[in-house]
């Protein structure tokens, strides 16, 4: 299907600095005006200036490389809203022979944004107690129990609304609101900002149309020249009217997505299916051409490279024209089969009674080693979402996984994960009475000397208190982050396509979105429960060792205490359908989920829910987490999400799946389950495999992320990466080429049990 044509930088350093300078001047000039206007003015500097040119082979226009200073809801490395990627600017200063004027400009920009970014403002609005509980932002390098994250992540926009209105229709809606809010300055400014944003969308389409025409005039006769002509026409059409074709619909969605800074595509078969079916059935395009178009969109997603996001959801209940949607879902899975890339994160929702062709197709694509689609069981998830989010069926039916697997309600709710908690570190600090043994610093709460805890319940109570203290701080932090984000900007492209914002005349984070919720990423859950189970048995129930002996062994990373490590390792572990180990996992899970969910009482958040999603943070946080009482060595990876610790599930996959379904899904906003199957089982024992998955889902399984590969391939790829450039694995909430992962992440995957 042709290869991926990556972006090449087009702007000179001088041009980049000029854009950032103008952006900053515009920002300063508009400090006194409504944030929606300021944002629109700044976006006008940013777009289309940072859009990159069409490259030969592109079926759609839409490439961009963000600058180190700019505006985005979620900038990797820069944070939220008005962001700055300081490291890149430092690099610019350090590594280039820049003229003195530019140097001065960059230094001035750094100086200015150093205290003006949205992330800075959030951090510096922390009250004392919050600062104490969340002392560091450096979750990837510093040891800690809880960390904040600065981003507005997980938007799923109402592209159906965009497509059915087109740009002119959207402008019409905005104009109507302007007319009706003439006396309301705040609302008027918001809609004026939206109008400017919509015009910017038009300008960007026309900008790309002009680029396409220019290339067309220069291209030699042939298919590329013809393609450019079609592209120019498409862009011209969507700039002035409603999209009428599959091609136009994709083009409009993709450009809007780039301008909005949204990284996920929601339920794509609810908004693209009718265009596809109509075009194919009326002979405008062939089935093959439709596939080529969608694959073309997929490739631009790959170019954009939002590895942890870029969700495309198909299938499931609640799709209006289900027959069309099913046809599109099959096309989308086929596109993922032929494109062979880690993106998009194709996800299939399914339910009992859905067209069986979809699941058959899904298993075929997974069987080819794609890691996609990820499977979501509506029969479990919809009732769970109803309970967890406290919403009615009609809204829960539109649940939508984003990013690494957090659920939100498609364009009705927002729930950025703005916090991380390492439960194993919470236990570690509790065992050390408020001291982090890795850094030697005071951390969290000092809740008493472990050696004085006479029974297990005392320890467990202290651990729970430690977790509660941090969860409370994180919930308030989430609320605060929304408040500051809303004060700073209107997030115009979100506000136009999120339910209720236009009706209420309010920006998304300023009272606009129907449900403003939050999510909290938990890590180390399973190592914590395995550790607690081991302590309970070895220290308290059977008294093989004392509290002091346990601490000595942990502090020595078991060196010289191998017998203690063995004792601890021999206690049954979660993932084996073992009653005691699994019950501890349930306790730990229910505790953190319920405490988190209860934070909606302490905040104005509609919901605040745990997500057990995991990207590779289990490994990153493991690097700063000491030896644990489950027998895990210091600074090694922790278990992935709700999965057993790699290699500890030894009783077969049915036992593992039975353990998984014991963890209640009604009290969180998504958990991910990795399963690694050999090609032999997956391909040659298809009936058993289907029965296995069917039973897991009937038993309450909510989700499955399946990698099909062979151990020999993985081991060989670990030692000879050059021979396996394309071996795909599911890490946690994202997929990747195995050879591109860090060694310890590779090891964690390698050691997972393969069935």
């Amino acid at each position, binding site marked *: 299907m042709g290869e991926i044509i990556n972006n090449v930088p087009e702007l000179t350093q001088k041009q980049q600095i000029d854009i950032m300078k103008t952006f900053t001047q515009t920002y300063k000039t508009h400090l006194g005006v409504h944030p929606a206007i300021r944002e629109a003015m700044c976006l006008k500097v940013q777009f289309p200036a940072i859009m990159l040119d069409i490259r030969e082979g592109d079926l759609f226009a839409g490439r961009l490389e963000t600058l180190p200073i700019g505006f985005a809801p979620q900038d990797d490395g820069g944070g939220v809203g008005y962001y700055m990627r300081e490291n890149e600017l430092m690099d610019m200063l350090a590594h280039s022979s820049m003229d003195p004027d530019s140097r001065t400009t960059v230094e001035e920009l750094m100086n200015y944004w150093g205290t003006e970014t949205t992330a800075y403002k959030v951090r510096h609005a922390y009250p004392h107690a919050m600062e104490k509980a969340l002392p560091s932002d450096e979750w990837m390098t510093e040891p800690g129990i809880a960390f904040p994250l600065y981003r507005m992540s997980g938007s799923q926009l109402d592209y159906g609304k965009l497509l059915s209105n087109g740009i002119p229709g959207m402008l019409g809606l905005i104009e109507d609101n302007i007319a009706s809010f003439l006396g309301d300055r705040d609302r008027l400014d918001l809609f004026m900002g939206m109008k400017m944003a919509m015009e910017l969308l038009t300008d960007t389409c026309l900008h790309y149309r002009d680029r396409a025409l220019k290339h067309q005039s220069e291209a030699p006769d042939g298919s590329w020249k013809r393609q450019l002509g079609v592209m120019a026409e498409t862009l011209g059409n969507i700039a002035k009217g409603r999209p009428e074709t599959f091609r136009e619909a994709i083009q409009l969605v993709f450009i809007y997505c780039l301008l909005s800074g949204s990284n996920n595509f929601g339920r794509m078969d609810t908004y693209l299916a009718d265009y596809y079916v109509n075009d194919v059935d009326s002979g405008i395009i062939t089935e093959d051409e439709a596939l080529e178009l969608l694959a073309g969109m997929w490739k631009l997603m790959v170019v954009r490279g939002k590895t942890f996001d870029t969700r495309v959801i198909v299938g499931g209940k609640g799709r209006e024209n289900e027959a069309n949607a099913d046809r599109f879902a099959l096309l989308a899975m086929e596109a993922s089969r032929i494109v062979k890339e880690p993106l998009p994160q194709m996800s299939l929702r399914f339910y009992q009674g859905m067209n069986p062709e979809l699941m058959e197709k899904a298993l075929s694509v997974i069987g080819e080693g794609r890691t996609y689609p990820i499977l979501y069981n509506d029969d479990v998830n919809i009732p769970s979402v109803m309970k967890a989010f406290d919403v009615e069926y009609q809204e829960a039916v539109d649940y939508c996984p984003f990013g690494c697997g957090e659920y939100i309600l498609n364009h009705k709710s927002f729930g950025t994960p703005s916090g991380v908690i390492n439960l194993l570190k919470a236990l570690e600090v509790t065992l050390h009475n408020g001291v982090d043994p890795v850094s030697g610093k005071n951390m969290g709460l000092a809740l008493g000397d472990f050696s004085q805890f006479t029974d297990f319940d005392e320890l467990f109570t202290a651990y729970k208190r430690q977790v509660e203290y941090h969860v409370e701080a994180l919930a308030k932090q989430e609320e605060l982050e929304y408040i500051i984000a809303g004060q700073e900007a209107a997030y115009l492209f979100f506000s136009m396509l999120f339910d209720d914002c236009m009706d209420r005349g309010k920006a998304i984070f300023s009272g606009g979105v129907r449900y403003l919720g939050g999510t909290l990423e938990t890590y180390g859950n399973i190592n914590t429960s395995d550790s607690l189970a081991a302590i309970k048995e070895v220290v308290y129930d059977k008294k093989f060792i004392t509290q002091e002996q346990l601490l000595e062994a942990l502090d020595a990373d078991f060196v010289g205490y191998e017998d203690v490590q063995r004792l601890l390792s021999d206690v049954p572990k979660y993932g084996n359908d073992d009653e005691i180990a699994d019950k501890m996992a349930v306790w730990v899970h229910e505790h953190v989920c319920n405490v988190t969910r209860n934070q909606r009482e302490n905040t104005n958040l509609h919901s605040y829910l745990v997500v057990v999603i995991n990207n590779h943070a289990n490994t990153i946080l493991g690097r700063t987490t000491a030896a644990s009482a489950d027998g895990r060595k210091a600074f090694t990876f922790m278990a992935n999400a709700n999965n057993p610790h790699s290699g500890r599930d030894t009783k077969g996959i049915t036992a593992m799946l039975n353990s998984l379904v014991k963890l209640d899904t009604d009290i969180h906003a998504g958990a991910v389950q990795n399963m690694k199957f050999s090609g032999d089982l997956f391909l040659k024992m298809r009936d*058993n495999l289907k029965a*296995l998955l069917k039973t897991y889902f009937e*038993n309450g399984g909510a989700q499955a992320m399946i990698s099909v590969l062979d151990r020999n391939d993985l081991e060989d790829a670990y030692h000879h990466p050059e021979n396996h450039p394309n071996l795909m694995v599911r890490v946690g909430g994202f997929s990747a080429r195995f050879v591109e992962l860090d060694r310890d992440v590779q090891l964690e995957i390698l050691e997972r049990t393969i069935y």
Partner: protein
Amino acid sequence: MEQKGMIFDIQRFSIHDGPGIRTTVFLKGCPLRCLWCHNPESQSPLPETGIVNGFGETGAAPRTRVIGREVTTREVMEEVKKDIQYYKNSGGGMTVSGGEPLNQPDFTLSLLELAKDAGIHTCVETCGYAGKDSIQRIIPFTDLFLYDYKETNTARHLEFTGVGNERILSNLRLILENGTSVILRCPIIPGMNDTEEHFLGIVHMERINPELLGIEVMAYHDMGKSKAAQIGKRYELEGIPTVSEELREEWIDRLKGYGCTKVY
């Protein structure tokens, strides 16, 4: 009635020992001493000590492990019943294997009875070397026998396994005449029983036992070697490589060429 027995493993999600998704209970102790045995730890009826690798923990030291534990039928059934939903959806169930299940006839019978009581499909994987009486007692509670046929020539059978095959053959007739399902399983070991005589013998078995459901060719795998080393046992076969899928297919084709229709 609750019985006690000696097992060395309970394997869940077992998909090679009978139809569907199964749980296989491996009983310890076997009257045969097949040179190629891939479960050498199953031969002795008593627990033994093996040395195995660590816990999957990076860099963990090897450790000893006791192979074999005495369990009650109730304990086994608790484990087996945990996957009952999987059996239902896949047409699977419980397989009693070994070792030789009929080396512990009362325990095996009790397991099978309890499984049938719970509505679970049952398989017995046996070498067939057992008392007629033991066979007769389990027939009513066994849905399917996976029945070994190791060597046609009884003298060579004795040489390879330590016993002749006469009793095995008469027990097979007994089961078939009772109308119970049987799949014949033929382990083929290069250089030992991959002979013309034995292949023709397998074809003959199909001819004289028309009730057989199928004949499965089991290719030699050398995993018994490392297992034997773990428990400090001598492994009799040296230098025989694991059989490739291609060679197995060749054998199957050869048997089909001789007129075997149920072979796979």
